[in-house]
């Protein structure tokens, strides 16, 4: 690599960083707007048109806010923890394909790279939690570590299932398909242009979505920064720029998980293919990439909105339930998924077998989980005692009869 290339690379990567920062800002805006919409309120609307400048103002404020290090804190680790969380979150983006051959780097081991790099963030959270020297952050850091660690496994296994399906660790192959030779004959492995993996591996999608939510620490898995319990968890003591970096990392991860869901299960930039009738089929590769990138972004944002929507609806789990869910449901299920897909490929069954087997399993597990966890609500243990029926209190005076009629009338 020549010097010039390095300079270009640095410039380009800075560009990427800026782009991602903007994406993060837009994501925070979108989250607030989505939640506001759900909650029948306006959301940010005063700062800039439709509140679009709100994230910018927030960012500027955070950058110019005092950045303090608490007493008793382990200063170095405290200072470094956000970096440990944010830098891997950024480095993941090297491998994300935005279009045909359009990634910062097309890595042959892309999937492994993703898995390996994203694992480092845990340490950052634990570090931040420990270094803050506050009980809440300690609790939060430990919770974060236990949680992220547990939900990392299903993610890894689902990614492995995808790798099995395309027989490659390259993200390009995930989207574009792959051809391998087995003995004498060659076999085409599916890419997502035709049929997104979501239809082949619905189980994988579900596991990935749930585990992804948990990796992000978003409701219903936000126990590590649960405001009502640990007041922000590992971030309690962080202020100003350091906190902003944590925040950035969190949203970068949200973005990455949304993008991964799109890339792994919804064909990334390639599905549904841009209607050729509209553009003709001799598009320049730039145009294809542009459209593909736009597609990817649109889908990613849609997934992100879905994540925000879930955030707006669900209460959070408790730590034991969370861990039990990971280890007793998600991990076994993800292994089942992996073995299933491997079997399907090994015996050369058609791929719809996978779908056909997955759906009943999902249903069965869903029902089993419900059964165990108090299915449809729980037995109603509350009953209503009425004075008119003499079940409670001193007996009603006889004069009450007309009133009862009115109850019936009033509904």
């Amino acid at each position, binding site marked *: *690599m020549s010097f010039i290339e*390095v300079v270009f*690379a*640095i410039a380009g*990567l800075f560009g990427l*960083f800026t782009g991602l920062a903007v994406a993060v800002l837009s994501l925070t805006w979108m989250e607030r707007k989505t939640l506001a919409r759900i909650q029948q309120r306006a959301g940010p609307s005063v700062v800039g048109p439709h509140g679009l400048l709100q994230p910018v103002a927030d960012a500027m404020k955070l*950058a*110019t806010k*005092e*950045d*303090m*290090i*608490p*007493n*008793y804190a*382990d200063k170095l680790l405290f200072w470094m923890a*956000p970096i440990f969380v*944010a*830098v891997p979150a*950024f*480095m993941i983006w*090297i491998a994300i394909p935005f279009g045909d051959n359009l990634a*910062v*780097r097309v890595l042959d081991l892309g*999937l*492994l790279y993703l898995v390996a790099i994203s694992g480092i963030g845990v340490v950052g959270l634990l570090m931040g939690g*420990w270094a*803050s*020297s*506050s*009980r*809440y952050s*300690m609790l939060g850091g430990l919770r974060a*570590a*236990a949680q992220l*660690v*547990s939900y*990392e*496994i299903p993610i*890894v296994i689902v990614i*492995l299932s995808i*790798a*099995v399906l395309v*027989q490659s*660790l390259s993200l390009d192959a995930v989207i574009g398909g792959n051809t*391998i030779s*087995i003995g004498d004959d060659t*076999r085409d492995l599916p890419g997502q242009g035709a049929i997104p993996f979501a239809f082949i591996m619905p189980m994988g999608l579900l596991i990935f979505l749930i585990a992804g939510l948990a990796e992000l620490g978003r409701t219903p898995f936000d126990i590590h920064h649960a405001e009502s319990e640990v007041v922000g968890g590992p971030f*309690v003591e962080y202020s100003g*720029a*350091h906190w*902003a*970096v944590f925040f950035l990392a969190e949203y970068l991860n949200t973005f990455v998980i949304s993008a991964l869901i799109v890339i792994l299960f919804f064909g990334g930039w390639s599905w549904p293919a841009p209607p050729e009738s509209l553009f003709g089929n001799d598009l320049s590769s730039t145009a294809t990439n542009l459209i593909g990138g736009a597609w990817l972004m649109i889908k990613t944002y849609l997934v992100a909105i879905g994540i925000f929507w879930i955030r707006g609806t669900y209460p959070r789990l408790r730590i*034991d339930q969370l861990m*039990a869910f990971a*280890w*007793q449901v998600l*991990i076994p299920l993800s292994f089942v998924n992996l073995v299933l897909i*491997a079997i399907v490929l*090994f015996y050369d069954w058609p791929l719809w077998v996978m779908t056909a087997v997955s759906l009943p399993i999902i249903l069965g597990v869903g029902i089993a989980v419900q059964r165990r966890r108090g299915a449809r609500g729980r037995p109603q243990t509350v009953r209503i005692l009425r004075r008119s029926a003499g079940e409670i209190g001193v007996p009603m005076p006889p004069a009450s009869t007309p009133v009862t009629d009115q109850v019936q009338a009033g509904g």
Partner: protein
Amino acid sequence: MPEGFADNWTIIAIAGGVGLLAIGILFLASYLLAPKRQSERGRIPYECGIEASPFSWSRTNIRYYVFGLAFLIFDVEAVFLFPWAVIFLEAAAAVFYEMIVFLGILMFGLTYAWRKGALNWR
């Protein structure tokens, strides 16, 4: 050294550097622009308004460790799975069954842990 290898990793290294640098710039900007007048008292760790005693260690619960360890084991397993995932179709059939046995053994471990209640928090 094979084609693209050095480039890939140089870029990745640069990406790490750029990430660091960008965050460093943010920190620097904050250092320069942000006011600093925190009192000694203000730097007491937050404890809901009560003056916290110094605190850095907590003896955590053993359960954390069990989960961490199980994660470690499964991570190592994933390291084996990654090469397997991309070759088992091309390789001999034995490779496929080998991995099934391997997974079977580890699943046995998981079931054992489950039975032992190690996967329950309580």
